[in-house]
């Protein structure tokens, strides 16, 4: 009797969690657009965690490498969104989600690091790994900004670097075409089993095997109507809803910051022009004046002076950018932290309830009951 009561209680609590999570209108709306894609059996879902901003550990390198830490952290949130948009537009993938942290159970995960972003060059290291542990690609994509002014309209952060995202999308699609449907199916199965074994290890730990090269192989799959699996899928979809809400926050964030970020890039472009002018000035005729003459001394001093003024103006603009976007960034980070906290708390509870349910459902009744 006690067993049945506990079982019912656990089920009810679990469903209450799931229903509570799915009830807000915002979640339902994003679910309609994004989770629908997961029903396509052949399209892989893609997860793009916020990029590693590539900030050097040594703060004394910031100026030399032209790294503005706060702006880098913002770029690390904006760039995955741009990659996501490109992948969605390619119509080759299932749901493409930007997340705040890596997810080992993701069907295909794109881990990015900003190697260089100085207004003129963007170097992005992208590592694409599937749920089975296979690395699809691991390379640095590099592009120089074109000379055309940034697009005045539109909500994309950096259109002059669009080519980099397109190139990543093309290379990923090429790998996807090579591996075939069986491999895709295996990745999807591995992903689900990984997720299931994280949430209910007792029930699902025996379905996967790690082979010598570190990759995972699905040994077997539970029946489609396995009640534990159905629960896992329900929870996973609920978690996707939360993730999609976080993702929607990134979209808002991108829209809010796009205008200011465009102005920042415009200034970076101007700074580059000034730097080019400084170089031409330094190489100019006055530089050939008689050594030690007033013209020569003045020229050397001015060349350095203009160079420093340009660098200091760039630093000032970075501070102005930070000031302007601080409130938006803070609000976004706060909201995302709330949502993440909710998911983490929920996961702990789901984990506990699933383990409890599994025990209840698999324990043989004691004799005499």
């Amino acid at each position, binding site marked *: 009797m006690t067993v049945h009561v506990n079982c019912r209680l656990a089920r009810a609590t679990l469903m209450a969690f799931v229903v509570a999570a799915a009830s807000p209108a915002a979640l339902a709306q994003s679910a309609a657009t994004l989770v629908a894609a997961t029903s396509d059996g052949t399209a892989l879902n893609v997860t793009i965690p916020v990029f590693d901003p590539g900030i050097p550990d040594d703060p004394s390198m910031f100026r030399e490498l032209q790294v503005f830490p706060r702006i880098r952290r913002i770029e690390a949130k904006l760039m995955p969104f741009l990659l996501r948009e490109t992948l969605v537009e390619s119509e080759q993938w299932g749901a493409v989600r930007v997340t705040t942290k890596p997810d080992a159970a993701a069907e295909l995960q794109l881990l990015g690091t900003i190697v260089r972003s100085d207004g003129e060059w963007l170097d992005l290291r992208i590592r694409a790994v599937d749920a089975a542990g296979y690395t699809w690609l691991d390379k640095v994509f590099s592009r120089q900004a074109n000379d055309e002014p940034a697009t005045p309209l539109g909500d994309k952060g950096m259109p002059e670097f669009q080519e980099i995202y397109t190139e990543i999308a093309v290379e990923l699609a090429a790998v996807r075409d090579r591996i075939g449907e069986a491999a895709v199916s295996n990745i999807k199965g591995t992903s689900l089993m990984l997720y299931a074994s994280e949430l209910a290890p007792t029930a699902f730990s025996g379905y996967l095997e790690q082979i010598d090269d570190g990759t995972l192989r699905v040994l077997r799959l539970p029946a489609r109507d396995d009640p534990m699996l159905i629960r896992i899928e329900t929870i996973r979809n609920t978690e996707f809803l939360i993730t999609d809400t976080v993702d929607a926050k990134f979209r808002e964030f991108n829209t809010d910051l796009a205008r200011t970020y465009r102005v*920042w890039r415009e200034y970076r472009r101007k700074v580059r022009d000034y730097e080019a002018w400084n170089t031409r000035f330094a190489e100019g005729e006055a530089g050939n004046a008689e050594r*030690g003459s007033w013209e020569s001394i003045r020229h050397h*001093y001015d060349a*350095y002076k203009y160079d420093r003024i340009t660098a200091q103006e760039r630093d000032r603009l970075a501070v102005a*950018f930070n000031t302007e976007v601080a409130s938006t960034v803070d609000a976004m980070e706060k909201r995302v932290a709330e949502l993440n906290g909710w998911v983490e708390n929920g996961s702990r509870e789901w984990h506990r309830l699933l383990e409890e349910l599994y025990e209840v459902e698999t324990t043989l009744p004691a004799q005499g009951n």
Partner: protein
Amino acid sequence: MLANALEFPVSATTPVRYPTILPIRNHSNSHCFTSLLLAAWLCLAGCAHEEVLLIEDTKYFEGDMPADFSGYWQRDYASSDNINQVLQNAYYALGRKNNRGRSGIPMASERDRSKLLPLARLVELITRTDELTISQTDHEILVERRDDFSLMCAFFDGVAKPIDSAFGKEVCGWDEDRLISVNDFPDGLRVIHQFQISADRKQLRVITTATSKTAPMPFTVSLYYWRIEKRPGRFACIETLSMKRVCSTGELTL
């Protein structure tokens, strides 16, 4: 002796600035030793002009920065050197050097004069600003000067971080509580600024020296600044990127 300079822990007089630009120090032996080292280095800088920006000892400090220069500073013209007078003194010193052992009025040669004058003009140009704004954090000092670039001294873990570009080098160091900023430019041109604050923190002395491989001697001026208090304005302002400077009479939030 300059009356306003009495609060400084060192002699404020800079009568003839050749061959050493450093004020005579009369503290402990170690201070004398440091000064001698620096003097020797500066002499070498004027003669051989190797690519040594600062002697290693001056590039480090432990704990807090040895002095706090932050604030607004207004030129004290009464106490500061008159650049024309400094130039005349330098010509006189050159003349004495050239006429050693001979009678008559010491006269610098036309060649020496023409080689020193550009340095004097440079020093005049870069010390023209009558106001300095200095901001200081735990690891950085920024000296803002009107119509010129800001001098920046960055220290990470007490170690000076040089600025190095195709157009020149900039590095800072400390000699006790004196901040030294050295700028090196092509063709052996070098500008050194030394900052020292008075004990009561009301006065700032900035000694600026220019040297070059072609000039017969360094050229140095000593300028004094009074601390001024700027009252907070009626408006609170912040710099933004797309809206430029944004001001408000109340609390400012974007």
